[in-house]
């Protein structure tokens, strides 16, 4: 049985490869070339750089497995980079990791897995896949602080049957210990926190360069319409944001809404910013069908815990009513539904509901 392991050069995918070897698979490591800087070369800063590919190559050599760098620049640019700017321009907040998983990693690469005569695609994501008489399930990782099930919510039965996530059963500490015990050079490599195609670390510089129309100034107003100040581009603002508003009002203000047509950012008090729910579109469910029980927990952003909510089906999607008012989620982000440890599915947040 052959396993194709997507190796980013980080410790998780390094250990994932090693675990698959231990499990008796014929392992092949690949790194995806996703982004090029000027001149067509892989970037040297950000994630997935030449240095990262070097790390992956060294680990592959240490594990004595074949290793290739595959070109996905065209797919990645179309599916992730272009929508990134377009989403901000529409006043929303994109989630590039989710788009990458949806279109590149677990679609295009999954197809390639079959073409390369491999049985399973393996990544170093922290999440768990299980199987029982009800089918395939996606569960949170053992390590709650590293759980990445949020960015994997779009997978379905077909995909899950061909994916393995070996490090989801381990805590990050255990992963690093295992890497160190195996003598893997990436054991103490820090996790990448950046958006992989933004070398400078500031996505606003990236957007200003790629899409200059996102850097146009506009008014910052309160919920009554009074102009409080000016901003330098709507891409610097996400609903719920508190810092960097460029206004001095005396007490804390939060972004309540972003209106791209008027290039307007609306700010308000904490209370004005809170939301009672959201509208979700494009939802998919891992089992293939929505849950019978409308009581779920939902994550409306990557790093905050899931909160109690109820799902109501509507024409084009779902209304998610939070159990308690929440700092408003940003349209464009994912809403991911859980039943305890199990991921039910998720979709894209279209609108914030207040009242």
């Amino acid at each position, binding site marked *: 049985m052959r396993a194709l392991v997507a190796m980013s050069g980080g410790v998780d995918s390094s250990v994932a490869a090693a675990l698959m070897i231990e499990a008796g698979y014929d392992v*092949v490591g690949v790194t995806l070339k996703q982004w090029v800087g000027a001149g067509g*070369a892989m970037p040297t800063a950000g994630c997935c750089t*030449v240095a990262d590919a070097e790390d992956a190559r060294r680990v592959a050599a240490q594990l004595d497995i074949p290793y290739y760098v595959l*070109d996905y620049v065209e797919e990645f640019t179309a599916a992730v980079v272009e929508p990134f700017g377009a989403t901000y321009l529409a006043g929303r907040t994109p989630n590039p990791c989710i788009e990458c998983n949806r279109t590149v990693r677990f679609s295009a690469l999954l197809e390639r897995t079959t073409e390369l005569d491999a049985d399973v695609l393996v990544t170093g994501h922290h999440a768990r896949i299980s199987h029982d008489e009800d089918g395939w399930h996606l569960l949170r990782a053992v390590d709650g602080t590293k759980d990445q099930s949020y960015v994997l919510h779009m997978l379905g039965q077909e995909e899950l049957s061909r994916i393995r996530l070996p490090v989801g059963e381990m805590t990050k500490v255990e992963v690093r210990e295992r890497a160190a015990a195996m003598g893997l050079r990436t054991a103490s490599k820090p996790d990448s926190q950046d958006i992989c195609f933004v070398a400078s670390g500031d996505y606003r510089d990236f957007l200003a360069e790629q899409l200059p129309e996102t850097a146009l100034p506009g008014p910052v107003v309160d919920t009554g319409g009074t102009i409080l100040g000016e901003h330098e581009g709507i891409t610097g603002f996400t609903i719920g944001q508190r810092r960097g508003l460029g206004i001095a009002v005396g007490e804390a203000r939060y972004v309540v809404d972003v209106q791209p047509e008027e290039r307007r950012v609306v700010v308000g008090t904490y209370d004005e910013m809170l939301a009672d729910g959201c509208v979700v579109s494009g939802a998919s469910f891992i089992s293939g069908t929505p849950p019978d029980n409308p009581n779920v927990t939902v994550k409306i952003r990557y790093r905050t815990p899931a909160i109690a909510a109820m799902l109501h089906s509507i024409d084009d999607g779902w209304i998610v009513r939070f159990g308690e008012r929440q700092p408003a989620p940003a349209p464009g982000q994912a809403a991911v539904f859980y039943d305890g440890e199990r991921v039910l599915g998720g979709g894209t947040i279209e609108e914030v509901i207040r009242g």
Partner: protein
Amino acid sequence: MLYLDHAATTPIRPEVSESMAPYLGERFGNPSGIHAKARQAKNSIEEARERIAASIGAAKPLEIVFTGGGTEADNLAVTGAAIGAPGSVVTTAVEHPAVLESVRFLSRVGHDVTVVPVDQAGRVSPDAVADAVDSGTAVVSAMTANNETGVIQPVGEITRLVRSVNNRVLIHTDAVQAFGSLPVAAGSDGPDLISVSAHKIGGPQGVGFLYVRDGVQLEPVIHGGGQELGRRSGTHNVGGIVGLAVAVEAAVADRSDYRARVGAARDRFEQDLRLWTNVKVTAAGADRLVSHAHLRFPGIKAETLLVRLDFAGVAAAAGAACHSGAIQESHVLAAMGVDSRAASESIRFSFGRGDDAATGAEAATIVSGVVEDLS
């Protein structure tokens, strides 16, 4: 394991390794010196020089300049010929990057450069090259045969026509890929500068030579202690040079046998593939080296095919590799008007010493099997 990437590098000839072994042992001397150890090394490299000169019909041994390989020889020829003079540079769109990047460098430092395009079969027109030459041209560089497609250029005709326009122009040819099968030789009617690389003809990596016609002045690209009559400084790679000479002699002696056997391998390979698959052969209408089978299987990404072939123990290539190892687009195919999609499906197989019709048949069986699986 079926090694079909001879265009990238070739297995070392046993007689080459044997000849080099003492130089990894007690024959460690530096030829630049007065004592016995130095003189032993000096004799070795000068003997190598004489043998190479004789092999290619060079009038004088000192017309052979040892370099660190084909790329370095190309740099010395192109930059060395142009940089001292105010002259312009003329080359073709399908040259090896060693030539094209040298030309780009010269452009950056103020030289006029002309890159003559090629036709769809990758051939440059001698008239087009001659048209680009004027009284101010310093050097014309046109490769003998292309490393990716194997397409043979009309260097003889180019040389003749260019000299009829301006007989002071230096004419350089990168013969790195062609040396093993074509009658590359020095001569009064031939090019003034010829690049050859050891590892493409069964010799070691890291050494080659530039034939420099007697009387031609070149500015060195590597400055230093003045070795090679100032044309290429640096302590000689004595063992490599010895191996280079053995490889050159063997390659020249082998040429007709090589053409027969390797040609049979490549022809059988392409013939069988045509029977069993919908393969398209790049530049099928042009004169090609006997070794090269540059192909496309429509609808199949070269990247995927190469990995599957690697799994099956078959070594082949596509384009050039960037530092990370991912395949980069070929400027040669772009110059031939091949679109991006077709270029991404293009793959190069290159046969070599030791291959024959049976190799071609075996290769076709494996390749068509994988192609069928992917179709």
